[in-house]
């Protein structure tokens, strides 16, 4: 029986960051009891359909789930344990912000069952934190990192780089400092401007510039070099870890395994007992999601049956993000084999005995490589 991972989406933040296009809302008066009931109800709903699957990871994302009362996390984790068998080595991650008030709750979250923390640090200097609209300063970030390291065995933090006006030199120094502070895992994202964000408008107005693609590539390569030397090689496009510290939950996404998505706007991929693969999406608006769950037990707004091509394309899209690459056997019919030769001759991928993996130069071009490599739905 396939293992199962579970993602919970907590859609609230204390404030909204100008670069963020996630499903996030600012609400000071969240009715905790109602949300608790809804999460538990959704879990019970899924438990009836997917009995007996062993849960290997749980992830609380958002939003800012560290704003939740720790006992809500505890109740959810306890319910999962009641409904499904849970792996002895289960990974339970919580995303957190490094403000003082949240830092004080870290121990309580550990008590609740959280065993991995992912901290949204984003930058190690005040000026950039302020540009990014973060509610914390560098001092709070360092304090939160120290607390997190002392409380949790497994811990990661995020940084955003290739910021406007950032030099390669400045990033190199910041990154080396980050490597020293890290405890086995770092997520490093290049700043991108998404539609429907305040940054989109500012960027369109020319209020700030992002590095052009050549410079962005230099940033990426520098990051690979420095963290490789620091013993934190990339295992995915933007994720670095010392061996054994990879995020097990996120690996499920990239291995295109089964996961339930619970909470407003959460997506899931789940295989039914008769081998049909579904894509689910929960209702996007928080209030609607609550009503939906209260009326029908779960919040899944859409359930789409994934075709063979859908699964092949999604599997390749996710799998090729991993530096270890993929075994192409399940994907052979969706891949243009001539394209493999062409891409290999450019030095963008390696292909050996059915195993396909991208080089760092290939990773840089993944969005262009995918449509080149994946056959049209009509030709597959």
């Amino acid at each position: 029986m396939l293992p199962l991972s579970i993602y919970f989406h907590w859609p609230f933040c204390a404030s909204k960051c100008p670069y963020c296009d996630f499903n996030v809302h600012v609400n000071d008066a969240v009715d905790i009891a109602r949300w608790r009931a809804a999460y538990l109800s959704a879990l019970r709903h899924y438990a009836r359909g997917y009995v007996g699957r062993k849960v290997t990871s749980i992830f609380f994302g958002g939003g800012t789930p560290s704003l939740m009362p720790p006992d809500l996390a505890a109740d959810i984790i306890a319910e999962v344990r009641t409904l499904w068998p849970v792996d002895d080595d289960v990974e339970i991650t919580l995303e957190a912000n490094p403000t003082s008030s949240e830092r004080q709750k870290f121990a309580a979250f550990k008590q609740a069952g959280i065993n991995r923390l992912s901290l949204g640090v984003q930058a190690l200097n005040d000026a950039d934190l302020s540009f990014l609209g973060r509610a914390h300063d560098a001092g709070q970030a360092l304090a939160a990192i120290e607390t997190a390291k002392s409380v949790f065995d497994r811990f990661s933090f995020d940084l955003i780089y290739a910021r406007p006006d950032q030099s390669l030199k400045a990033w190199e120094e910041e990154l080396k400092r980050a490597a020293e502070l890290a405890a086995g895992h770092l997520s490093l994202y290049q700043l991108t401007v998404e539609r429907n964000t305040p940054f989109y408008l500012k960027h369109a107005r020319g209020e700030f510039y992002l590095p052009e693609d050549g410079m962005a590539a230099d940033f990426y390569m520098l990051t690979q070099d420095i963290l490789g030397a620091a013993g934190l090689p990339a295992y995915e496009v933007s994720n670095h870890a010392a061996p054994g510290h990879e995020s097990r939950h996120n690996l499920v996404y990239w291995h295109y395994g089964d996961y339930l998505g619970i909470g407003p706007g959460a997506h899931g991929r789940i295989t039914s007992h008769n081998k049909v693969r579904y894509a689910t999406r929960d209702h996007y608006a928080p209030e609607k999601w609550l009503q939906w769950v209260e009326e029908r037990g779960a919040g899944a707004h859409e359930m789409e049956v994934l075709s063979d091509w859908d699964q092949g394309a999604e599997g390749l899209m996710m799998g090729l993000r991993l530096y270890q690459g993929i075994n192409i056997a399940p994907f052979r019919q969706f891949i243009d084999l001539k394209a493999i030769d062409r891409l290999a001759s450019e030095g963008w991928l390696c292909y050996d005995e059915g195993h396909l993996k991208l080089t760092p130069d290939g990773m840089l071009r993944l969005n262009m490589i995918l449509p080149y490599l994946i056959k049209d739905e009509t030709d597959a």
Partner: protein
Amino acid sequence: MKNKPETKPLEHIRNFSIIAHIDHGKSTLADRLIQSCGGLEEREMSEQVLDNTDIERERGITIKAQTVRLAYKAKDGIEYQLNLMDTPGHVDFTYEVSRSLASCEGSLLVVDATQGVEAQTLANVYQALDNNHEIVTVVNKIDLPSSDIENAKQQVEDVIGLDASEAVPCSGKTGIGIDNLLEAIVTKLPPPHKGDSDAPTKALLVDSWYDSYLGVVILVRVIDGYLKKGQKIKFMRAGATREIDRVGMFTPKKVMLDALGPGEMGFITASIKEISETRVGDTITDDKYPCDTPLDGFKPSVPMVFCSFYPVDQSDFEKLRDSLGKVQLNDASLHFEMESSQALGLGFRCGFLGLLHMEIIQERLEREFDLDLIPTAPSVVYKINMTNGEQIELYNPVDMPDVVKIKSIEEPWIKATIMVPDEYLGGLLQLCQDRRGVQENLTYAGDRAMLVYRLPLNEVVFDFYDRLKSISKGYASFDYELDGYGENDLVKLDIRVNDEPVDALAMIVHRSVAEGRGRQLCERLKELIPRQMFKIAIQAAIGGKIIARENVSAMRKDVTAKCYGGDVSRKKKLLEKQKKGKAKMRQYGNVDIPQSAFIAALKMGDN
């Protein structure tokens, strides 16, 4: 022939056409003549009643020759039948003009009292004189404050060499002088020269068009005998026999008649479905009692300018085919043939009388048939002399034979007449020189220069007219006639993307300008082709020799930074969009070039 129908005697008929430059008020003048003779009531007058299509009215030009019969009671007390043919003023439609002129005995030469003689007027007057026309000069727009009647007359004498002492001043707009003009038409223009009512029917097929109610309508000028309802007629050259089901005239309203007699003009219908069955210039005679020899007729129209139309949306291809067919119903001078291009898909190679004709056809297709078109660069017909002695005509640069088999290439030349105010002369001389022109003559009429240049037609189809207008701030006028073929050092310029030629961009140019054009196109394409995963090489080449090159550098980074469980669906949608976008792309080597880049490159002549 028994029961002779009653028609006007020859001496009471006047057939005439109007010659004028665009904007000199010809159609307004015609309107006024119609109104004065009671052809239409005041309330029925829409402006420029003879210009039937929207495009004609909007652009203020006449494309199809129209004819209208007027009844004018002259001072001598006799009611005359005046058959007025409105003729196109634009250079592209010289062919239509020659048809009109051949069916008349006289012309009104209309000159704008504020402007004077223009280049096209000149050519048309000479054509009228070639047809032995009597000419009445009309100085129009005398109501305008800036009008200068004496200057206009002087120009007619200086530039054209006609006696203008008896020119009739008038205003089509206010009606001043119209009576004098009508009187001059009757007294100065001759009646039809000959016409035997007892001879077998002999009539000239002047024009034909498709009318959705009547079917094909044939405009005729009767020489001898009669055309009557129910008569069996024969088209002498086409060889077909038909029965006339309607006979009539335009006043300009359609009025049915019993017959048309010698010297008269009018229309007939004969249950003909396709315009292609009626050949303009054919002789119509009686099936049972035919005349001995047909009339000279006209030379068929020869397309001079070629370009291809491709539908932007390939699924519109069949619609384009239908639409071209429908346009051709009323415009036999349009030629088209299917072709396929790697860059643009399926389309049609079309032949036109000239650039304006091309523009009008494109506009009709887009407006009346709601098509979105990509026109390729206009080209002309080259004659290629092969080393084996054969001569082939080249209609499309893509079909150029292998250079080693070519002995020489000939291109069509024109003789251009340009009238231009003195102050812009320098700029125009430079333009003609840049376009490989050879000056033949330069004379002055007042403060205006008349330039005669020999120019290669292919230099003229490439934005010459636009340049001329912009250099002279719109004041220069231009006319041309074909002037044979001449050998020249011409080469085929290919544009290659990643070593593959882009068929739609191939062109034939003089060797001296090839490098400049090639570089310009490469630079333009570099701007237009989006960067992608692989480097893209753009080259301009003559044969195997590269004369210009540009590179579109490869994109170094494009990867989504964050991609977790919730992003899969979004990413897949993006992938599907990229895949769909690919359908609108053309593959060159290992890269996909959006069709839009080629479309934009083809518009290069615009600036």
